[in-house]
């Protein structure tokens, strides 16, 4: 099947499936809604032709959508069934992967939304909240249509993966869908648990608006419980899918644990967990500081519990999720190879250092700015200043607790194994990020400061420079220190990179296959037994190396595998 035909078939299939699904949703919604109204509703006005209009439109959509979809999907099926090259190419195509991934994702999004609304209604009914104008039959209908569509496309892709040793876009689009939905599910789950804890603690300590018989908080509580259940379901399914992909590595043809998307997923979870816990702990520390300084918003025990004790408790689900992911990721790396374990630890350390330095930089710049204002007598030393200083110092404390240990370990690793640690992507990315972000912060602040100075020298508006320039100058100072420190390391690494290539590479002419290293299989793919040989394929600019690699794969003897890394 050529690309144009494949594109046509999959696009028309997707659009006609959308039309068919909307028609089916309306049909089911009308049937359930009419039955519910006929069985128990008290109709006080209107109603006669409402259901008929909807049924008419729904039947029209189904009548148009189903034959178009059926014909095109049968043609698609003829394309990918079989063992010839045409069928194989179709199953390997990025268009097919995109179609299955996109349709599955849209269906899952609608299904998750319907499940959230439905569970919110169920929990609300159980807890006795007012459901308002909600119509659960609509959500049941949406779920009944979206779930089979998602299930079919998910299952179809799962079979493809295990049969065809997919690679490149066909593989990573599927993987992207898996890990993106796992992340969404985890965020819903952890965020929901955090919200439940916050609501229940607020009720327990009698937070303002939560006591005295008020029960409005049951409404957000039911929504939080719904997000917990839906998030848990999404996360469990995707995590189980990932687990099966890892255990089926030999059948699938590649080790999911070595994929960049899996590492990105773990990194994103750790980043979100660190950021959330950092912000809440900083907020709690700031309130503690205000309490000590006597400038807190509340003075009673309830306020202390709400402002100082509460935030860390609410952040516990994020801390647990981050820790569990870190432990699982580290255990997985250790199970693969020392190299993989080092990569996991390296990435986690750099992520921690990145979060820490952001807290440090923001807190220090704000603190310096306020201190300049006090020194220049443009800000009074009053309660509001102390109120703010508590927040700035809290950010610095959290930043220091994160950055100093993480960066100390990074520097130790750089000293112990400089050739590796000074040239790896994670370390290089961290340094570029630190220098780039610092410059982006410093440049506008420096330009503004210079503008105000020049404007004043030229007799511009006579506003006090101290109040205008305190914060920008503080930003320039902090950003410059960060940029200089990291730029020095970055330049040193770049200078050392040229003569120290990872290994002795013998390039034979303009296009050659070069052996880099021969090593035990455990380093590359733990699940595929036997030995392995890491190779680098080089060629002139413009060469389609992927096609060459595919051609090589075609000629491999039985039992041998050529993998992308």
């Amino acid at each position, binding site marked *: 099947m050529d690309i144009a035909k494949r594109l046509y078939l999959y696009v028309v299939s997707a659009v006609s499936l959308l039309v068919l699904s909307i028609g089916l949703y309306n049909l089911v919604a009308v*049937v359930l809604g009419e039955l519910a109204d006929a069985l128990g509703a008290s109709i006080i006005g209107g109603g006669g032709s409402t259901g008929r*209009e909807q049924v008419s439109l729904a*039947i029209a959509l189904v009548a148009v959508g189903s034959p178009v979809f059926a014909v095109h999907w049968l043609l698609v099926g003829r394309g*990918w*069934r079989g063992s010839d090259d045409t069928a194989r190419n179709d199953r390997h195509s990025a268009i097919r992967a995109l179609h299955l991934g996109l349709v599955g994702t849209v269906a899952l999004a609608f299904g998750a939304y319907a499940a959230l609304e439905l569970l919110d209604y169920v929990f609300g009914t159980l807890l006795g909240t007012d459901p308002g104008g909600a119509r659960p039959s609509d959500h049941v209908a949406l779920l009944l249509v979206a779930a089979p569509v998602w299930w079919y496309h998910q299952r179809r892709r799962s079979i493809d993966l295990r049969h065809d040793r997919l690679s490149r876009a066909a593989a990573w689009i599927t993987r992207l869908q898996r890990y993106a939905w796992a992340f969404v599910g985890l965020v819903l789950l952890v965020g929901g648990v955090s919200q439940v804890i916050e609501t229940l603690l607020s009720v327990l300590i009698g937070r303002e608006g939560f006591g005295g018989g008020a029960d409005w908080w049951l409404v957000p509580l039911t929504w939080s419980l719904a997000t917990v259940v839906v998030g848990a379901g999404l996360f469990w399914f995707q995590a189980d899918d990932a687990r099966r992909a890892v255990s089926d590595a030999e*059948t699938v043809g590649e080790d999911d644990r070595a994929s960049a998307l899996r590492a990105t997923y773990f990194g994103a979870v750790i980043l979100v967990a660190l950021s959330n816990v950092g912000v809440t702990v900083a907020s709690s520390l700031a309130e503690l500081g205000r309490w000590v300084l006597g400038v807190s918003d509340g003075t009673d025990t309830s306020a202390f519990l709400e402002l100082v004790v509460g935030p860390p408790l609410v952040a516990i689900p994020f801390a647990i999720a981050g820790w569990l992911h870190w432990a699982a990721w580290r255990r997985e790396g250790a199970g693969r190879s020392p190299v993989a374990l080092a990569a996991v630890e390296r990435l986690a350390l750099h992520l921690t250092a990145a979060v820490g330095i952001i807290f440090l930089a923001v807190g220090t710049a704000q603190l310096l700015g306020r201190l300049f204002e006090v020194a220049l007598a443009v800000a009074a030393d009053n309660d509001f200043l102390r109120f703010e200083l508590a927040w700035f110092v809290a950010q610095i404390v959290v930043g220091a607790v994160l950055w100093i240990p993480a960066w100390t370990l990074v520097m130790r690793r750089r000293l112990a194994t400089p050739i590796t640690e000074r040239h790896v992507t994670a370390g290089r990315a961290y340094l570029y990020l630190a220098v780039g972000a610092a410059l982006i912060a410093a440049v506008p602040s420096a330009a503004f400061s210079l503008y105000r100075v020049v404007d004043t020298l030229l007799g511009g508006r006579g506003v006090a420079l101290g109040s205008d320039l305190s914060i920008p100058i503080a930003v320039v100072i902090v950003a410059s220190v960060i940029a200089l420190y990291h730029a020095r390391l970055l330049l040193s690494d770049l200078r050392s990179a040229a003569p120290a290539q990872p290994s002795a590479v013998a390039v034979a002419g303009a296009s050659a296959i070069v052996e880099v290293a021969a090593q035990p299989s455990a380093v590359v793919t733990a699940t595929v037994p036997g030995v392995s040989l890491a190779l680098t394929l080089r060629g002139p600019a413009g060469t389609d190396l992927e096609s060459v690699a595919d051609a090589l794969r075609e000629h491999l003897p039985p039992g041998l595998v050529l993998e992308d890394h």
Partner: protein
Amino acid sequence: MNEPSGVMTAPPSGSAAFPRSVVLIGAAISALVVIALIVAVALPNRPTEYAAGSPEAAFQDFYEAWETGDIEAAYGHFSSTVTAEMSPAEYRRMDADWSWQRDQGRRLVLLNVDVTADRSVLRIRVDQFSEGGLAGERYSYERSVRLVRERGTWLIDEPLVGIESVPYQY
């Protein structure tokens, strides 16, 4: 997972023959269409009959009058407080501006009635369907209607056009 990794010799699923699953899905969709037709045509889902003199019956009479375009009759269901603020001519102008409600294919479902002495509040769910877009638009929302009893008759105590409460000063 039909076979171990390596050479592919068989299709990933099923045979290439006419798929039975398509027939089954088609039959299920056809059955759903028939059920939907039966439900839409056979189920009455007409307005409930309420006891004469009840707040529900008062609102139902008002809504039926408004729905059929009998503005004078609808105006007759308003309380003295409302009629003092709004003349029949003003109400007619308001109705002209809000008459689009008649095209919305609405169904009003009574959720509950709260009666306190001579006042009552009806909580009503409005199920609405309007054409437009690929699938039309269906959604539900809630409205409350206030009534007051004057000389033994329940009357609507807010300027209502259809189910929407409209500000005075027309």
